[in-house]
């Protein structure tokens, strides 16, 4: 088991190197950072001088090695656009994204599993049918459309909830949290719904399908024949056996919740790393883009690692191996 974890760790390092290399090759094609640094009306001489100051005139492999060397020393550079150290800017923005993703994952996983089990057990009930129909909307509508729709309904028409921002935040050490104020929670509702809806319906449909499968298996039939209470059959046996694929999907989904929070953050002006990333792309702020991509890769790697550990908890067979 220990060897297994070590191997995963080694793979993770390779993944990070690959991500940084690919992102470096892409930078060439996202535009000229001197436009945002010097404005549209700089002279060609000034532009050229800046390009060589930043080292963009060097071959990509040289730039890449230089970058990796700096990163290994913990040096991510200064944001071209914001004129501040990249690590500081990311650290400032990360809490907003993590809180949003965390709440959205909880809603998606808990809601998805609960509704999935419900629709599997009460397969023929009208509420289950209604849920299944509504869930089709969840998987088929694009995120930004759902976000805008929610804003128009709940912010413009009903005026119950704010349309943008994070509300009031409280600073605890280096972490700003919106979870301690009423306006913070109010601001969370719409972005969380937008972000969680797709994942929730996905998990719900997955759990339902897996549950239906499990309920048809022999051991469930035997359990019924033995006269075990339905509750124990459903939750103690059937659900538990459906969890392996659910954990895999949920893990990947949490990673993509953080990564794809970009759209939700942009629609709701949520001041997280996703919004920062979009602004950075527009102004070709290479240090921030590079650090963001690395950060997302690290998060994915960590989540996959945790998923591996959870497998061990859920499936006793893996523990013996």
């Amino acid at each position, binding site marked *: 088991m220990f060897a297994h974890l070590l191997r995963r760790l080694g793979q993770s390092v390779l993944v990070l190197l690959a991500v940084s290399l690919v992102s470096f090759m892409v930078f060439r094609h996202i535009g000229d950072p001197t436009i945002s640094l010097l404005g549209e009306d700089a*002279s*060609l001489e000034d532009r050229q001088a800046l390009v060589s100051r930043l080292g963009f005139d060097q071959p990509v492999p040289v730039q890449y090695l230089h970058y990796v060397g700096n990163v290994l020393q913990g040096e991510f550079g200064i944001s071209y656009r914001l004129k501040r150290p990249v690590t500081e800017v990311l650290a400032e923005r990360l809490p907003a994204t993590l809180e949003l993703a965390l709440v959205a994952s909880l809603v998606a996983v808990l809601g998805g599993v609960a509704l999935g089990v419900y629709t599997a057990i009460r397969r023929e009930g009208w509420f289950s049918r209604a849920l299944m129909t509504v869930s089709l909307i969840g998987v088929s509508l694009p995120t930004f459309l759902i976000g805008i729709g929610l804003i128009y309904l709940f912010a413009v028409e009903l005026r119950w909830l704010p349309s*943008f921002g994070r509300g009031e935040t409280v600073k605890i050490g280096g972490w700003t949290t919106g979870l301690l104020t009423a306006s913070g929670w109010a601001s969370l509702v719409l972005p969380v719904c937008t972000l969680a809806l797709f994942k929730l319906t996905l998990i719900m449909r997955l759990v339902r399908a897996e549950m239906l499968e499990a309920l048809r298996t022999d051991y469930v039939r035997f359990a019924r024949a033995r006269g075990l209470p339905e509750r124990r059959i459903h939750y103690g046996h059937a659900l538990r056996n459906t969890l392996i694929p659910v954990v895999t999907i949920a893990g990947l989904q949490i990673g993509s919740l953080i990564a794809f929070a970009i759209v939700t953050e942009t629609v709701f*002006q949520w001041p997280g790393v996703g919004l920062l990333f979009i602004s950075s792309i527009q102004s070709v702020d290479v240090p921030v883009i590079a650090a963001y991509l690395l950060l997302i890769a690290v998060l994915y790697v960590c989540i996959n690692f945790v998923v591996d550990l959870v497998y061990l908890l859920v499936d006793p067979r893996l523990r013996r191996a």
Partner: protein
Amino acid sequence: MMRKLLVTSLLAAGLLQGAALQAETVRWSRSSDAATLDPHSVNTGTNINISHQLYEPLVLRDIAGKLIPALATSWALTPDPTVWEFKLRRGVKFHDGSLLTADDVVFSLDRARAPSSGMKALLASVAEVRKVDPFTVQVKTKGPNLIFPDNLVNIFVVNAAWAKANKSEAPQDEKGKEENHFTRNENGTGPFQLVSREQDSRTVFKQFPGYWGRGQFPLQVTELVFVPIKSPATRVAALLSGEVDFLQDVPVPDIARLKEDKKLRVNQGPENRTIFLGLNVGPDPLKYSDVQGKNPLADPKVREAFNLAIDRDAIQKAVMRGLSAPTGIIAPPFVHGYEKAFDTYPKANAAQAKKLLAEAGYPNGFGITLHCPNDRYVNDEAICTALSSFLGRIGVKATVAARPIALHSAAINAADTDFYLFGWGVPTFDSAYVFDYLVHTRGKDGRGPTNATRYSNPALDAQIAGLSSESDKAKRDKAIHDIWSTVQKERIYLALHNQVLDYAMVRKLDIPVDPMNYTFFKNATVGNK
């Protein structure tokens, strides 16, 4: 006892109401946040707009484009035509209470000329800035520069002692490791001072009690909350839901609807920005065309055919929904040197255009790529699509290649395009700026950086270079007229239209539209609902 309580609470409520009438908070939104609060760091509209609340330049421009005094009360050319003299306003206080003197002005102009400054291009002609007495500053330019004060409207004055005490004598450069103090702090002389700032989230300003302009400006806005909102639909929703009072960067499709809303006011005005097409007129063959070995655009007849094929009025009506002013010259009307006589464009005439193409040897037209930005100007990509269909009528297959401005601008700076849509504003309000950037031969003597047309006319270059050192106004104006005549005759650019700006706000607010798209909240008036 009860009664007494009631009276006191009524009184308290009355007092609160009185205070509410006095304190006017305006929540202001636009599409992006300023990158930094350093007024010398980046030359972008959003940054300068924020700086105009916190800091002030020596001279400002009113809504009609005329120079007006700000921190300088008067300015004049000295007998030496290379030296401008500025008399400073007395009794101007910085936000920390210290008084403005010539030392601050000299320091600020030098800081704005530093290699790491984003504003240095505007001060490229400066040789030396010197203090004469505590309230007089002289600027020596490298040659006579009649329009030097025009370059100063966005050069902000900072506090020299404060900058030195915080070790921020020069703006942040990209390699530095320490954050510059100006990035998130300020000590200006402006009508507002900074209360708090969260990037991309909210920035709060309050009126500066010691502002010198008290009594001269309305100053009715006491608190200003800036909340950038990137998504256009959310921005409009925030105004409709009452979470925002004033919207800059109003999405064009929403303007008609916002105008109908009785609770809102939409102000409209011309913007200092012309949208036009650039053509590769150089002798070398085209790179993005199916014509091999020669350059059809080098033939004036082909350029004229393009000019005739484009229906500018249809673009205004169908693409811009009326929100543009079609034009025949690549400078808006308030720019010095603009003449009504130049501002003419032909009525679209496909038959005649086709005839000209045939005369030029292209009876069946040709194929060419039209490079276009898709995130910079109002409806930029849609304009290109319309242009493509107009050209299609005369047999020219223009393939639209739309891309973000970061890529588009880079291609124009590298002259890596043959046919492109571009926009240009004139911050100096003088034609020389247009000639320097768009007409002069590309990349010669530091001029012509954004001229991707390959047009090169040594005689015209000499005339353009002469403008910056001409000390006789009449001669200079004559030269401007002559240059425009050539530019219009040669048709290296096909002007399309001037953009129009819209601001949407709650009914009680009234903020006029500034051609440079800078809002001055000290001038805003707040009525009773």
